[in-house]
C-alpha cells in the first residue's frame, strides 16, 4: 500500500486472564492504509489481542502504541484523543438496542461535535448509505438481520471518520454472499478513504480476498506462528500446521 508508516505498534505485549497466559510477548506493527488480519484457530486469543489494542484490557506487560501514543499508559485526555482516532465493530454489532440505526450513527457525532441536528443526520445517512443501509435508517437493531447489524456497526464506527477501523469477526455467521459483500465494502473503504483495517477473523475466503498482511496466533505457544501475505503462507511457510490451516486441512497437530 502507500508508504510504510507504522500506525500501530505492539511491543512485547503479554496478556493474561488471572493465572492463565493467553498471549506471550508479541511484537508486530500495522502499516497505515493496509488491511491487516489477525487470525488463528479458535481460542488462540485473537479477540483478546483486539481488545488489548483498543484499550479495553490492559496488558500484563509490554506496550501498544497508536501513532506515537501508548494506549496502555495514556491519561484521560490522551486516551480520549486516541479513542477518537479509531472505530470498532464488535462481533455482535453491539448496536444500542434502544436507538434506531440513524440515532446509533448520530450518537458519536452528537457527543463529539458541535454540528446541528440537520448536519448530523445528513452525515449519519451518508455513512449508512456507504454500507448500503440508507433505507433502514429508522429501523431498530432488533428489526434487521445479522449481516445488516454488522454493516450498521461499521457505519457507526466510521461516524467520526477514524483513521483505523477494528473489526471483530466481520463475516462470521454470515452467508457467503453477504460475507462477500462485506469484504467488498472493506476493500472499497480501504481504497477510497485510505482507512487502516485491523480485522480478526478465521474465514479463509475472506482472508484471501482482502488481507494485505496477516499474523497468525498459535494457541499452544501463545506466540505469533506466522506473518506475511496469505498466499505466501499457504505455499511456502515452513510450519506444516500453518500450511494446513491455509489449505483447510485437519490433522496437522
Amino acid at each position, binding site marked *: 500500500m502507500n508508504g510504510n508508516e507504522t500506525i500501530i505498534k505492539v511491543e512485547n505485549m503479554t496478556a493474561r486472564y488471572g*493465572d492463565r497466559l493467553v498471549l506471550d510477548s508479541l511484537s508486530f506493527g500495522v502499516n497505515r492504509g493496509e488491511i491487516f488480519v489477525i487470525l488463528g484457530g479458535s481460542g488462540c486469543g485473537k479477540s483478546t489481542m483486539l481488545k488489548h489494542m*483498543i*484499550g*479495553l484490557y490492559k496488558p500484563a506487560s509490554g506496550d501498544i502504541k497508536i501513532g506515537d501514543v501508548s494506549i496502555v499508559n495514556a491519561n484521560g485526555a490522551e486516551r480520549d484523543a486516541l*479513542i477518537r482516532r479509531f472505530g*470498532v465493530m464488535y462481533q455482535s454489532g*453491539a*448496536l444500542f438496542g434502544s436507538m434506531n440505526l440513524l440515532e446509533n450513527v448520530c*450518537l458519536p457525532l452528537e*457527543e463529539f461535535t458541535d454540528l446541528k441536528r440537520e448536519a448530523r443526520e445528513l452525515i449519519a445517512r451518508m455513512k449508512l448509505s456507504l454500507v448500503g443501509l440508507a433505507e433502514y435508517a429508522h429501523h431498530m437493531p432488533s428489526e434487521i438481520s445479522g449481516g445488516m447489524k454488522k454493516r450498521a456497526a461499521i457505519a457507526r464506527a466510521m461516524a467520526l471518520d477514524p483513521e483505523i477501523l477494528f473489526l471483530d469477526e466481520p463475516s462470521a455467521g454470515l452467508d457467503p454472499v453477504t460475507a462477500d459483500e462485506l469484504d467488498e465494502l472493506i476493500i472499497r473503504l480501504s481504497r477510497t478513504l485510505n482507512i487502516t483495517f485491523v480485522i480478526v477473523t478465521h474465514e479463509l475466503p475472506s482472508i484471501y480476498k482482502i488481507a494485505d498482511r496477516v499474523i497468525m496466533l498459535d494457541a499452544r505457544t501463545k506466540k505469533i506462528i506466522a506473518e506475511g501475505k496469505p498466499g505466501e503462507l499457504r505455499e511456502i511457510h515452513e510450519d506444516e500446521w500453518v500450511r494446513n490451516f491455509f489449505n483447510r486441512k485437519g490433522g496437522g497437530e
Partner: protein
Amino acid sequence: MKRKPSSSRATCNGGLTGRQLNLSFTGYLDASTLPYLWGEVRRHLSHKGIESIVVDGSRIDYCDGAGTGLLVYIRQTARRLNAAVEFQELDSGTAGLLAQYPADKLDVRSEKKGQPTNLVWEVGKVFCETLNGLKEHIAFLGELAVGLIRAMLHPGSLRMKDFLLVAENSGAKALPIIAMLGFLVGLILAFQGAVLMKQFAAEIYIADFVGKAVVRELGPLITAIIVAGRTGSAFAAEIGTMKVNEEIDAFTTMGLDPVRFLVIPRVSAATLMTPLLAVLTNLSGMVGGALVMVGLGFPVITYVNRVLAAVTLSDYLGGLFKALVFGLLVSCAGCLCGLRTGEGASAVGSSATRAVVSSIIMIVIADGIFAVLFYFLGI
C-alpha cells in the same frame, strides 16, 4: 420413558481361563441394553489377578456410540489393571468407532481441574476478589456522585429521552400495583388493629395507628420493595444484557462514559419517582384503613380528622425522604449489578437476582438507620 434394563436384547458372557478373562457379547449394544451389560462387565472385571482380557465381538448385531463406551470402559479398566486387551472379530464399523477414541486422548486431564487448591489459596482468592469488588463499588459510587452532581448543576447534560422513558416505566406504570398494595396494607393493618383495640373499646385509635404506621414506615418500605422488584431488577437485566452484547464496550471505545449514558438517567429518574409513588401508597393505605373504620360504624369524617391530627407534616416528609433514599439505593444497586455482569445469559439472570436481594437488604438496613436517626432527631 426409562426402559428397564433388559437382558433379552443383549447378553454378556464371561469366564476366567487361568488369568485370562474372556468376554463375549451378543445382540444390541446400545443405550437401552447398556445398564444391564455394564453391570455384568463390572462384575467380571472385579475378578482378582486378571492379566489379559479377550473380547469376542463376533455376535454383536449392533453397536452405537453408547455401546462403544462400554468397550472403551473395558479398555481403560484393562489399562488400570495393567492387563493386555484384545478385541476379536469386531465388525469394521464398531472397530472404526472404537478407534475414534485413542486412549491417550481420553485420559488427558482437564486443564482447569489440575489447578492446585487448598484452603489458604481459596481464602486468599476470595479475599482478593472481595477486595476488588469493594474497589469497584467505591469507584462506581465516586463516578455516580460526580455524574449526579453534574446532572444537577447542568440539567441539560442529562439525556432527557432516557430519563423520561425510565420515569414512565418505573413511575407511571407502577401506579396500579402500588395503589393496590397500599390499599391492602392499610386494610390489613386496620383490621388487625381492630381485633386488638376492640378489647379496650379503643377502635377510634385505629386511625392514629394506621396513619402513623403507613406514613412513617410501611408506605416508603412497600414502595421501595416494589421498586426493587420492578425497576431495580429491570435495570440490572437491561444493563447486564448490554454488557453481554458488548454494548458497554462499544460505549467505552467510542469514548462515551457508560455511567453518564446509562446509569445517571436511570438513577435520577427512579430516585425521583420513588417518593412520588410513596405518596400514592400512603393515600391508598389511608383508604384501606377508612374502609375498615366505616365497617366498624365510624363516619369517614371522624377517621379523616383523627388521621390529620395524628400524622404530622414531619412524619409525612420524613417518610417521603426515606422513600427518596430507598429509591437511590435500589437504582444504584440495580445499575451496579448490571455493570458487573459476567459472560452469558445466565449471568444476566443472576445479576437481576443479586440486584433485588441486595436492594432489599440495603432498604432494611437503611430503614433501621433512619429509625435511630429519627428517634434522636425527634421526628
